[in-house]
């Protein structure tokens, strides 16, 4: 490509020094590469530092402010009162519910992701490999809201899932499930089962990719050696494949866990009226106007993810990213 670009632009073999401001600038950068480096780094670091890190600090700062219950105005004095509010039973309930959901979603995503990742890593070749890759990439990049909308269509009472189950004479199964406490509800689109399914669907590609990356690095003859030595497929999986894929699974779980912790749109559109952390943050900053409490709430996923990342790092998950 470079050669072509040079050929199409015939120039003397040795270009004359260009002189002028541009020439001396170029010479300056050549003599002082550090200056050039500094100039290159300055815009992105300033942008991210001011816009992003600055905002994060603003957020942290806000969480130490408090709201005046009578006037609804924000009192800009340092206090731990907001964190005290955070520890009310209702709020702890929200945090527990969100973390449980995140753990379940992560677990089930890993189970569904593994066969896809394993097939793509070990058996798919050539055209099939490309097909698998696009088959994971296209849903990953499809519009987030459209994916949720699609599930609203599927899970609606009059939707395709009920229709399918009716055709299979399995409606009793759905009705039985919906009559259960906690997981059930009026219809799937207003139950926590629905929320769970959509979470798994939307974050699944984030699990497949790192697991596949980890499995790509497992040499095929390792699996063959295991079966040559008399291991059953189940034993090979438990003792060879799974331990080698684990860093990939942990890497994927960082995404599924963190994304579930922070999401507020999925449980709002498909699910019950019981809140998740994201929804609590959103309603506190919006309708309630209590930005300090919203800020304190966001500190919860940051702390959880901090511990999670620390644990993941110890398991070597970052090498699989």
């Amino acid at each position, binding site marked *: 490509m470079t050669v072509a670009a040079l050929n199409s632009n015939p120039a003397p073999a040795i*270009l004359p020094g260009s002189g002028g401001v541009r020439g001396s600038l170029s010479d300056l950068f050549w003599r002082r590469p550090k200056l050039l480096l500094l100039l290159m780094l300055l815009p*992105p670091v300033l942008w*991210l530092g001011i816009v992003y890190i600055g905002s994060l600090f603003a957020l942290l700062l806000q969480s130490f402010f408090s709201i005046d219950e009578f006037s609804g105005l924000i009192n800009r004095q340092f206090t731990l009162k907001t964190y005290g509010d955070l520890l009310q039973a209702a709020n702890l309930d929200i945090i527990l519910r969100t973390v449980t959901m995140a753990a379940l979603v992560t677990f089930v995503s890993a189970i569904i992701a593994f066969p896809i990742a394993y097939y793509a890593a070990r058996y798919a070749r050539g055209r099939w490999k490309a097909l698998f890759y696009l088959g994971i990439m296209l849903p990953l990049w*499809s519009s987030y809201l459209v994916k949720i909308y699609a599930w609203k269509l599927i899970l609606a009472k009059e939707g395709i899932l009920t229709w399918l189950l009716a055709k299979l004479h399995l409606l009793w199964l759905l009705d039985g499930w919906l009559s259960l406490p906690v997981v059930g509800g009026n219809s799937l689109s207003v139950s926590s089962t629905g929320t769970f399914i959509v979470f798994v669907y939307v974050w699944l590609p984030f699990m497949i990719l790192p697991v596949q990356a980890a499995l790509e690095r497992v040499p095929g003859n390792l699996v063959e050696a295991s079966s040559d030595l008399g291991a059953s497929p189940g034993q090979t999986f438990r003792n060879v494949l799974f331990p080698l894929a684990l860093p990939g699974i942990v890497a994927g779980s960082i995404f599924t866990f963190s994304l579930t912790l922070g999401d507020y749109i999925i449980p709002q559109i498909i699910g019950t009226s019981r809140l998740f952390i994201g929804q609590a943050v959103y309603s506190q900053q919006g309708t309630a106007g209590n930005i300090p409490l919203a800020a304190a709430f966001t500190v919860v996923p940051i702390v959880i993810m901090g511990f999670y990342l620390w644990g993941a790092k110890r398991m070597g998950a970052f090498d699989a990213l």
Partner: protein
Amino acid sequence: MRSDGSSSAPLGLKVAAACGLLFLHLPILLIFIYAFTTEERSFVWPPPGLTTQWFAVTWNRPDVWEALSLSVRVAAISTLVALVLGTLCAAAVSRTRFFGRETISLLVILPIALPGIITGIALRSAFSLAEIPFSFWTIVLGHATFCVVVVYNNAVARLRRTSGSMIEASMDLGADGFQTFRHVVLPNIATALLAGGMLAFALSFDEVIVTTFTAGQQQTLPIWMLEELIRPRQRPVTNVVAMVVVLVTLLPILVAYYLTQNGDQIAGSGK
């Protein structure tokens, strides 16, 4: 590794992988069918009839056009900012080793690694502390911040493959720094930048979580859709918009895929 590929997968694995892929794709295909349904009030399946009239209805809706135009403008400007910042950062990180190099990579990745709601509320509280009113530019500020990482990832992967000796050769032949950049570096990384730009555009075009915190009363297309999802007004129009959004976001991904196909860490894995 000799026996790799000669063996074929056990049936159970094939079925599980196929079911997984179907699970990923069928819901999106369903959107395409619903765009043609004659049913207005509910999501009934199977559709009672098929029609194309909702495309015309959607075409004549000014609110859809306004939201679309805002989304496209935001995505275009954010992509431009992300291209400049991401390329600069990638060039600096890949050419030299310096103190704090790892920190820079972390800084770039952080906006996408932390949940969107944190980025969103952080920006919102910064705006409120600094008393900045919501505008077109507050949306761009948020979007550009998390778009930098996709451009950066693509550019870094390509620069790592570009050999440094070519730049030295160019300098030896008398080209100054700017000429080297124009004739040697740029042609080498152009497709990677194009791919990164496409992905950044798709990311920004689709973003809703951060946008709800930085948009105020303005409606981008995803915010328009969110409104429709929470308080449906005209379901068939939503169906059509959903289908169009799928098509608009898929095209850049396919193009980016073909641009970076040979050998690079392929675009998109870094969403």
